[in-house]
């Protein structure tokens, strides 16, 4: 190797970094992210003053913080998206190790901020939630393992990644944070699906889930009541869900008007888990549809771009990141419209939260880096006559 490159002139592909970035990046997705961030700030203006008032800050304290963190997140996103997939992988693996250690040490040094779950490190000026940073790193590591497992003479990557997933999910459950644990399991499942999970296994798992659900419904009265309660059309108006549904109804098509919403005063999580309800109440269905289509276009565009990708690591990692991003958004909004049982999950890039914002920025940066246009060997295919 050494003699081969010795004395050779370092060789780039001849294109400056920024023009290349601009040429190859998925500009539509990036614009969607920017718009989401702006919407997040706009909703923060509406949703966070009550919280600020409760905690004794000036009304727009949380909006300022959101702007600062969001700016940092956008910078992180752009820097990450400038990197090559290999560099992204290297950094992500290191980041993953750090976050993993952070997660493992949570029970000893973490704090629960009186919320009953030890998820944060208190840094004084801000708090740090390692599980948010763990997620993108985990996706990259698992994709790397799965891709390596597909190589001839490769390691048993599927097994390793599965063990890793279960370990991380268990650590999250201990906190307890069932939502993130499910998200991690789901992310791995999607990657495994794309990496070529046997059809028999998929059908078997689906059948098992249905069967277990039916069994649990018919044998456990408690479970049945939960499901019935979730399915029933009526909802206790004094619960968060009740307030949220009412807010969506009040909003109608065009909303009750900026600053006129009431729900933010009664919902303690109006600025995070139920921010979509605030959006629906004040700005109406229009904004909600816009938000949904932004998320949808980011996810679907990324997945469609990844279809062309030949490198299986990049394909898997991109799929995992896009799916996690999309599912998190879906769960958050699905809870507010009562399609899903109540589960606290932030709306990525819109909800307030420093860790979530910056980690989201990094994750989207990675996604953008993976979905950049790359030569995919079509010419060599063509020359060899194997392409389509």
């Amino acid at each position, binding site marked *: 190797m050494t003699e081969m490159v010795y004395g050779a002139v370092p060789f780039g592909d001849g294109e400056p970094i920024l023009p290349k970035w601009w040429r190859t990046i998925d500009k539509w997705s990036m614009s969607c992210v920017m718009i989401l961030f702006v919407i997040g700030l706009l909703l923060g203006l509406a949703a966070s003053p009550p919280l600020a008032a409760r905690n004794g800050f000036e009304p727009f304290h949380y909006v300022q913080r959101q702007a600062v963190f969001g700016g940092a997140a956008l910078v992180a996103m752009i820097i990450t998206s400038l990197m090559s997939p290999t560099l992204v992988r290297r950094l992500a693996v290191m980041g993953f190790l750090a976050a993993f250690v952070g997660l493992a040490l949570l029970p000893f040094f973490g704090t629960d901020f009186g919320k009953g779950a030890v998820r944060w490190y208190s840094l004084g000026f801000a708090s740090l939630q390692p599980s948010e940073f763990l997620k993108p790193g985990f996706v990259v590591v698992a994709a790397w393992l799965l891709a390596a497992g597909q190589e001839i003479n490769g390691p048993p990557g599927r097994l390793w990644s599965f063990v890793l997933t279960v370990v991380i999910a268990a650590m999250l459950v201990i906190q307890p944070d069932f939502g993130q644990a499910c998200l991690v399991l789901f992310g791995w499942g*999607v990657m495994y699906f794309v990496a*070529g999970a046997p059809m028999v296994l998929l059908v078997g798992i689906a059948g098992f889930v249905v069967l277990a659900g039916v069994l649990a419904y018919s044998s456990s009265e408690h479970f049945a009541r939960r499901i*019935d309660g979730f399915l029933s059309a*009526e*909802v*206790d108006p004094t619960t968060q869900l009740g307030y949220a549904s*009412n807010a969506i109804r009040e909003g109608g098509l065009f909303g009750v008007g900026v600053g006129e919403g009431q729900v933010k005063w009664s919902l303690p999580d109006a600025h995070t888990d139920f921010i979509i309800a605030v959006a629906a109440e004040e700005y109406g269905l229009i904004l*909600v549809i816009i938000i949904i*289509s932004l998320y949808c276009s980011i996810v679907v565009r990324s997945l469609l771009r990844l279809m062309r990708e030949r490198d299986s690591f990049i394909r898997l990692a991109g799929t995992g990141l896009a799916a996690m991003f999309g599912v998190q958004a879906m769960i958050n909004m699905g809870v507010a419209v009562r*399609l899903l049982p109540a589960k606290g999950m932030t709306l990525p890039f819109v909800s307030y939260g420093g860790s979530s914002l910056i980690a989201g920025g990094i994750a989207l940066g990675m996604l953008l880096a993976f979905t950049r246009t790359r030569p995919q060997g079509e010419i060599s295919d063509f020359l060899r006559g194997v392409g389509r």
Partner: protein
Amino acid sequence: MIRTPLRPLARILPARAKGENPDAIERENLNRRHEEIEAKARVRAESRLLVLSVSFLCAFVVIGGRMMMMATSEPSEPLANAQGTVIANQRADIVDRQGRILATNFETHSLYAQPPQMVDPLAAAKGLVQIFPDLDEKKLIKNFTGKKKFLWIKKKISPEQKQAVHDIGDPGLLFGPREMRLYPNGKLAAHVLGGASFGKEGVNSAELKGVAGVEAQFDGYLRDPANGDRPLQLSLDLTIQAAMERVLFGGMRLMSAKGAAAILMDAYTGEVIAVSSLPSFDPNDRPRVSIPGEDPSENPLFNRAVQGVYELGSTFKIFAAAQAMDLGLMNPETIINTRGPLQWGKFKIRDFHNYGNALTLTKVIVKSSNIGTARVAQMIGPLRQKQFLAALGMFDPTPFEIVEAVNAQPLLPKQYSELSAMTISYGHGISTSPMHLAAGYAVIANGGHYVSPTVLKQAGPQLGPRVMSPVTAAASRQMLRKVVSEGTASFGEVPGYAVGGKTGSADKPKPRGGYYNDKVIATFASIFPSNDPKYVLVVTLDEPEVFTLGETRRTAGWTAVPVAAELIRRVAPLLGLRPQVEPAGFGGVTLTSN
């Protein structure tokens, strides 16, 4: 399965033979296979990614669609109904045998607060305390200004109170409609009805749950929405119940007793027409249950007639006599040795007075001789006595349908020896509830059949298995009649109703063993009219004491019997019994003295 060899030996071997390096061939082969795998994986992943994209698109569309449905639906006042459970708040009425209301439902409101919606918590608390003086203002302020989002203030309020709370005008004070259980007759039949309280509570309704008496026993029936317009009909008669409670209360006061119980039972159907236990309570406002350390039997909630078990004393003697006659061992005129005291091991059985050396069986009952009865029991023997008493239902809780009845498990000696048989024959050593006794006397009254005491109205006679022959029953009735006409219960004579009965004055057992000599349970178990008895009446007074004719008297003949006589005098006409007044001039020959 066709395995592709890892190394293309077909090419390597000739290459090796030519002296070429086979590694290049191997690498090329590996590279080719790698590309094949890649291509296959890519094609598969392409389709799966497409599936994934479509599913994400669908999911987002579903969320958007749902959002649109919710947004375009009218904002309606949401129905309070957490977890989809329906709280059934209907409860069937309870009526007496004539269809008069004993328990019904009444619409009222509960008052609750949602502090986050309060405008002026301090003023609200102050106003509330003015309306409800029992509320603590400091505690209210603490609750209203604290982190609580919801609290109940009052479970039931009157319309006037509701208006007053309205006038406070705080949006955080809210009302929930309630159905409450109402007992329009107050204390009447309190122990039978028991009471109801709120179970699961929601903002818009609360579940009514029976906590005692028939309300608890028939909770399932009363709550079943299908029975909403079919009231539960009891055997009680409101008029007679009222008369009984009034007379019994007077009797209890007059005899300075600390408690009293009475049961009026139909001898053929087992229907309990009236049952009362004093002191009583108001089921609309149940007193607290006794705390540990307190004697639960002193609590007004305690049902002395059904729940309490006592040694009921000489009222049991008639069972020994009846059994002896039923077995053919004796007839009413059999002479029994009553020389006292009767020595049995280290125990001596004595009579209240010395009645002489010998008495006929009838006289043993009439004079209430413990020695005579004990001798009868000796002849019967413990085994047969046990069977007989079991057939009378004296060993099991009564089937009377209120939840408290199962607590009345009769107390029996651990070892049912001959001595036990002798003491039990005169009602010591066995503790039963007055309801047990009434059921036993019903057997004598109806001609020998066991009837289960019941609180539900019956269509007709409910005669159970035969316990004694009609002849025995008739002979026993005559003995009971003689107890009143010429024996210990002479105050029990009610002209025209030919009362028959047996007194019992049992010394109360001390909690730590032994008996008090100045505290008795005085019982009078009676049947009337004794020539053709329709009803059984048991009256029990707890620790009665009356100063008459120069001495303090506690025996039933001086205490329970006059109360029972007054009761019969009052209720017999209400029951529709005509007094059988003997025509004047028949000179002492009455219809019942034969």
